[in-house]
């Protein structure tokens, strides 16, 4: 279930280079690439954002990103995947997450790219703190759907 070694899955501190990732992902045998670029918005809930900081449970986050990439190859007829998340301090407009998926046909590339970001957002242990002029807050976030207690009590079916 490992992602093919030709995928790029990374957590980085430095700015993400979209052109290099896109160039790597698109192959001459493909015809389509879909990219998701997530970046720092200048506001949050009507407050002006100054900058963000991201932190991660790094080894687990990387493993979860690699699981997602591997799952994409199992579920969709795609070629290559790049999934990169940046950590540390990010300024307004800077890319926090970049996902590129290439495929022979666009439907698979769209489906896979969307599945990747949707799954990343609700399962990968990364946290965002938003800094405003008058303070900072941890973003609300999503509760990962973790396994429930291993209990003898079964839910009514």
């Amino acid at each position, binding site marked *: 279930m490992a992602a093919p070694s030709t995928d790029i899955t990374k957590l980085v501190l430095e700015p993400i280079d979209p052109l290099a990732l896109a160039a790597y992902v698109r192959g001459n045998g493909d015809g389509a690439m879909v990219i998701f670029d*997530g970046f720092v918005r200048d506001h949050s809930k009507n407050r002006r954002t100054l900058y963000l900081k*991201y*932190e*991660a*449970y790094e*080894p*687990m*986050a990387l*493993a979860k990103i690699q699981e997602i990439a591997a799952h994409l190859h199992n579920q969709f007829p795609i070629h290559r995947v790049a999934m990169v*998340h940046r950590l540390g301090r990010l300024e307004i407009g800077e890319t*926090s*997450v970049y996902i590129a998926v290439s495929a022979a046909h666009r439907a698979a590339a769209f489906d896979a790219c969307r599945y990747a*970001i949707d799954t*990343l*957002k*609700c*399962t*990968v*242990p*990364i*946290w*965002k*703190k938003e800094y405003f002029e008058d303070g900072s807050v*941890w*973003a*609300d*976030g*999503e*509760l*990962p759907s*973790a*396994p*429930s*207690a*291993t*209990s003898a009590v079964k839910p009514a079916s």
Partner: protein
Amino acid sequence: MPSVSQSIRVKVLFFGRLKEIAGRAHESIDLAPEADIESLFARYASRYPELQQYRPSLVASCNQEFAPWNTVLHAGDEVAFLPPVSGG
């Protein structure tokens, strides 16, 4: 035969808001054998009462995999309490 009082040592990690409340990113702690993640959390909640309110919004991991709260811990396990994730 091992003594019934023999303890196990696990590593505990804190992230986001929890790291701020605990004032640290990680520590090692000795637990009674058969302790589960829930009881480990209870121990921290008694040390840092502010933690308790976040319990419903947390998920647990053991050895970098999501784990049920009733997971029984073993020596050397790495446990983390994960606030709602907000990557992306």
